[in-house]
């Protein structure tokens, strides 16, 4: 059967995300929990589903198992269809030997045959590192309207931060005339989001020639975009104005969770026209006990709160025992907080168990982290900014 997809998405989910410390020791970054019932990868996958993109390749090579299990058949995102769907794509052996993904561009290059089978007109490149809601269909329409070879999603960052980003300098029509990677003296504040729409033939051609260049680092930002600019291809910028958060560090992951607790959260997860889908674990409603206290928090199904929870995010199946205090904290799925334990400005990862009277984190200072499956002894004290884990 001959297939014709308008657009296939390729999601770069490969990074270990080492700046997340012990949180990514056992899982890839896109599988890190966020916001009570989501994982980071739910955002690009749900965006795809809501944008009408039904074929997604997920490129991964680090700890793919948890991601593989989480994605499963793709049903939670309506991506379990016979004419497309979601595929986890690790590097594979070609004849005698295989090779790992060398860079972002190389990861796509190694999967050109995957894309080819869907015979698409356009390819959407995504990364699995950000929390945002985005209608890729609008971006694609922009790309088509401007007959671009490549459209780069950009967002305006404060001028003082601009030098930390890859910047797209555009002319008045939105055409990209220059790309600067972390310049000292930025000429614009249009930061690339690492979200690209390529016309498929262009992508294929430039990836193929880039691969032949032994000096190339096979990276979109460092190699592909500059080469295309030099070749005079039509590159346009597409402005994104919504909430966009890189959750690549402990601090930013914690921040992004706290964002959800403001009276008017900068990202609305209650939007029934743009639901964020997630794999559901089948827990009963959460229980607020007669003596428990819950204030300014997100609490997910399966939780049982006998202690005090203030300004925190509780993921599915978290237990907070009597006398325990959880404040300004992110508690990931299945974690147990023992009696009289105190958790402040901390992230407690999946399945961790905090013993009675333990004190994790402090009222001020850096975020304390307890890694997944870690059992913290009763009375243990973990100071601000410290990490404890297997």
């Amino acid at each position, binding site marked *: 059967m001959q297939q014709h997809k308008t657009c296939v998405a390729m999601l770069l989910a490969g990074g270990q995300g080492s700046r997340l410390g012990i949180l990514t020791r056992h899982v890839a970054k896109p599988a890190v929990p966020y916001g009570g019932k989501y994982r980071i990868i739910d955002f690009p996958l749900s965006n795809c589903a809501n944008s009408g993109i039904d074929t997604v390749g997920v490129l991964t090579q680090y700890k793919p198992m948890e991601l593989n299990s989480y994605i499963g058949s793709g049903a939670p995102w309506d991506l379990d269809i016979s004419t497309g769907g979601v595929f986890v794509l690790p590097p594979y052996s070609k004849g005698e030997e295989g090779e790992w993904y060398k860079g972002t561009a190389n990861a796509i290059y190694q999967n050109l045959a995957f894309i080819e089978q869907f015979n698409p007109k356009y390819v959407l490149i995504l990364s699995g590192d950000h929390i945002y809601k985005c209608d890729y269909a609008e971006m694609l329409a922009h790309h088509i309207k401007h007959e671009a070879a490549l459209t780069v999603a950009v967002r305006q960052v404060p001028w003082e931060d601009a030098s930390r980003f890859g910047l797209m300098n555009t002319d008045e029509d939105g055409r990209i005339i220059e790309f600067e990677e972390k310049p000292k003296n930025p000429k614009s504040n249009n930061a690339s989001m690492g979200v690209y729409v390529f016309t498929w033939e262009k992508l294929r051609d430039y990836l193929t020639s880039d691969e032949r260049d032994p000096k190339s680092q096979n990276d979109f930002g460092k190699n592909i975009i500059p080469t295309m600019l030099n070749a005079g291809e039509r590159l346009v910028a597409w402005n994104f104005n919504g909430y966009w958060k890189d959750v690549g560090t402990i601090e930013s992951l914690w921040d992004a969770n706290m964002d959800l607790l403001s009276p008017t959260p900068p990202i609305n997860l209650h939007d029934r026209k743009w639901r*964020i889908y997630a794999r559901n674990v*089948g*827990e*009963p*409603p*959460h229980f607020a006990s007669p003596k428990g206290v819950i204030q300014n928090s997100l609490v997910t199904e399966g939780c049982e709160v006998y202690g005090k929870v203030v300004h925190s995010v509780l993921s599915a199946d978290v237990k907070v025992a009597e006398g325990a205090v959880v404040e300004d904290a992110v508690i990931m799925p299945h974690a147990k907080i023992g009696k009289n334990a105190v958790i402040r400005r901390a992230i407690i990862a999946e399945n961790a168990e905090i013993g009675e009277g333990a004190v994790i984190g402090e009222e001020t200072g850096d975020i304390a982290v307890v890694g997944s499956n870690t059992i913290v002894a009763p009375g243990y004290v973990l100071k601000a900014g410290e990490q404890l884990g297997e």
Partner: protein
Amino acid sequence: MKQNIVGLIYTGERVDELQELTRYRNTAALPMVGRYRLIDFTLANMIHSGIKNIGIIMQKNYHSLMDHLGSGREWNLHGKRSGLTILPPFMSRENVGVYDGLLDALHNNMNFMRRSVERNIVVTDSNVLYQVDFRDMMNHHLDNKADITLLYTKDRNVRRNARGRYLQVEKDQVTKLEIDPTIPHFENTYVGAFIIRRELLIDLVDRAVASGQHHSSREMIAQMVSERIYRIGAFECPGRVWMIDSVESYYQCNMDFLNDKLRAQAFRDDKPVWTKLRDEMPARYMGDSLVTNTLVADGCLIEGTVENSILFRGVVVKPGAVIRNSIIMQDAVISRNAEVENCILDKQTTLREDVRLIAPRSYPLVVPKNLTI
């Protein structure tokens, strides 16, 4: 692994005492415990007993039940080899029909029973909530060399005057059966589930219909007991049993789930109760919320006071609003300073600002769905 039991759920019970709650839905589709429908618990019993082929006999008012079950995907019952079979009322050029009891329903769904390949069948009603492993019941049935085995309970909570089926059980065998007695004489209440060899059931239904007993299975079982031809086993259901046959029993059953122990019995880590998903965000507690002894489903937004209550998915409690001892179904909105006590608010009801709706504990008030008060 490969199973030898097929499940059949009859959803035809008509319970007028449930008032407005079953006006547009049947009993099996009653919203329960914050995010479930009553049938989810029956399905969970079957799924965790390894039953993978389940037929559901539909009756009047089955739109909401069909919508709930969908493709069966949420229960992993969407396969080709097995899964959920919706059996809508049989309507042909001759028959614009509604079943006249379980026996009639079974008779009209003989095809499902004949097409199944499993050796045994478990047939259940859908208005009872309990936890049982049908494999245990099956083993008991075999060890007991019974022809049919009835599930019963000694839970006094389900006894009713002038209603129900009560069993005299001697040595794991049913020796007498009472139907709707003024006052039940036996301590064992039939829970509305039996196991039988599939071929035997087909044979019994065929014969019962041929002899004109069209009304219900009650007569079929009663006759089996009185005839003393068959060995009728009895298996006691472990744990609590709830019979949902009135607004009061519906209310009480839901409220019982505020008890830690009863909740732990129903929701085991290794036996999840699946239900239709809504992809809601976690519940949000904002402002001066004060919530105690309450079950809260995802998607709720709580800025007021809630105690001893159950909030279904997407309920909104505005600042100053107070909810006590109530069941608030999906997407209901309790506006500022409104007060509700001892009530059951059906889906998408809205209580306007400052409105007070207070009923006595002994007689919970039902507000029909979509109503704004």
